[in-house]
């Protein structure tokens, strides 16, 4: 479903991604781990072209993202993204946050968009917050709305960039539970996270990134219990 080949990205002199290649299958949950600055976010952001790769190839369903004839906005409709800091629209209510893009981008009717939004809010357990403004929500609630907002576009893939890193510990579970639910529903997911339990329980595959490269990949079991690369071992010993 997603095919990445020899992906490079530099910011000026700084080479942040240095030849990333991997394939992500439909329904797969891929967890990306690695030290700070290793390029995890940049990799994720290349997958929906929030960053433009310097060279390499990304294909989603066989369609090349970097082909000049590819409509970036169209691609992004299929690739949902959840950010560390939620990035909800503060001037819109919860339900408006969710309905805006389907209405403006896809031309869905207001009533249909709203119906779908309420369904999604039900799913993330926040139906009663539909008319609230984001500022009145807790961090965990905000992130669940952000997930619902991304899902409203019916994406084929969901990208999560440290979705629980900005949360108080007691709110992490409610967000991870929503993500687990999504995974068991068959959503294709790429998740950058430090939640190793989530990686073990939900991940089909773990990628370990360091200095812009994938140094090691395997099942959670392989990576966590029997890491081959010394850098992986060193990293895991620090966080586990």
């Amino acid at each position, binding site marked *: 479903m997603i095919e990445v080949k020899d992906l490079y990205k530099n910011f000026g002199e700084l080479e942040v991604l240095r030849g990333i290649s991997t394939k992500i299958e439909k329904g797969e949950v891929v967890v990306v781990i690695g030290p700070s600055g290793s390029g995890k976010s940049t990799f994720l952001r290349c997958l929906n072209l929030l960053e433009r790769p310097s060279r390499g190839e990304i294909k989603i369903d066989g369609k090349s993202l970097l082909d000049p004839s590819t409509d970036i906005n169209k691609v*992004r*409709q299929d690739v*949902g993204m959840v*950010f560390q800091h939620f990035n909800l629209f503060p001037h819109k209510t919860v339900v408006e946050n969710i309905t805006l*893009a389907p209405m*403006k981008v896809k031309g869905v009717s207001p009533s249909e968009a709203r119906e779908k939004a309420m369904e999604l809010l039900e799913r993330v357990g926040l139906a009663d917050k539909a008319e609230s403004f984001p500022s009145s929500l807790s961090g965990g609630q905000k992130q669940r709305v952000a997930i619902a907002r*991304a899902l409203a576009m019916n994406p084929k893939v969901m990208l999560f960039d440290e979705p629980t890193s900005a949360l108080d510990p007691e709110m992490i579970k409610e967000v991870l539970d929503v993500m687990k639910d999504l995974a068991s529903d068959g959503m294709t997911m790429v998740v950058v996270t430090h939640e190793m339990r989530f990686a073990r329980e939900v991940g089909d595959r773990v990628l370990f990134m360091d200095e812009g490269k994938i140094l090691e990949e395997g099942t959670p079991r392989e990576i966590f219990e029997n890491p081959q690369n010394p850098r992986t071992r060193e990293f895991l010993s620090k966080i586990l």
Partner: protein
Amino acid sequence: MKSLDFSIVIPYIHLFFRGALTALEMAVLAVLIGVAIGTFVGLGKMSRILPVKLLCTAYVEIIRGTPLLVQLLIFYFGLPQILGFTIPEFPAAVLALGINSGGYVAEIVRGGILAVDKGQMEAARSLGMTYGQAMRYIILPQAFKKMIPPLGNEFITLLKDSSLATTIGFPELTRAAQIVAGNTYRPFEPYLTAAAFYFVMTVTFSFLMSIVERRLAASD
């Protein structure tokens, strides 16, 4: 030292009221023109299209780098030489003020947009919105809120700067004081009266703005 006698302005007080109203009118029209121009120029300054960016940057620099009084004189006395007709005082003054204001508002618009968290644009784009849609539905509404306090200041500046229209002979508030001074041979009282009129208007407006700002802060 002679004492002040404000009773001498009383027969002319209607001139002051009318002048104050005119000043308000000019400031309101000028700020509207300023916002219209400033929005485009401010966005243009952030454009990735180089000629647009340069043109808008030049506009802001020229407007801010030259005195408003000179701009007004060019507009009223200079332009007719090329146009072949005179622009009447009121539209000339309002246009000059508005075009000038556009340069300042452009910076206010740019500042407001830059003050919106970068994550907002990213979230909007990640949902498939175009740059234009993201600007219109997500960035500008938030930027506008941040622009309200500096736009309030801009309005106050325009209200005071409308006094420059005196130089092209337009009967606004300062001109009223000038006329009264000429008629009574007592300049101090009429000019103080004009100052008081300006002051009451700006202070009242500042007060109203502080209420609006408190409301805005509460809704964050």
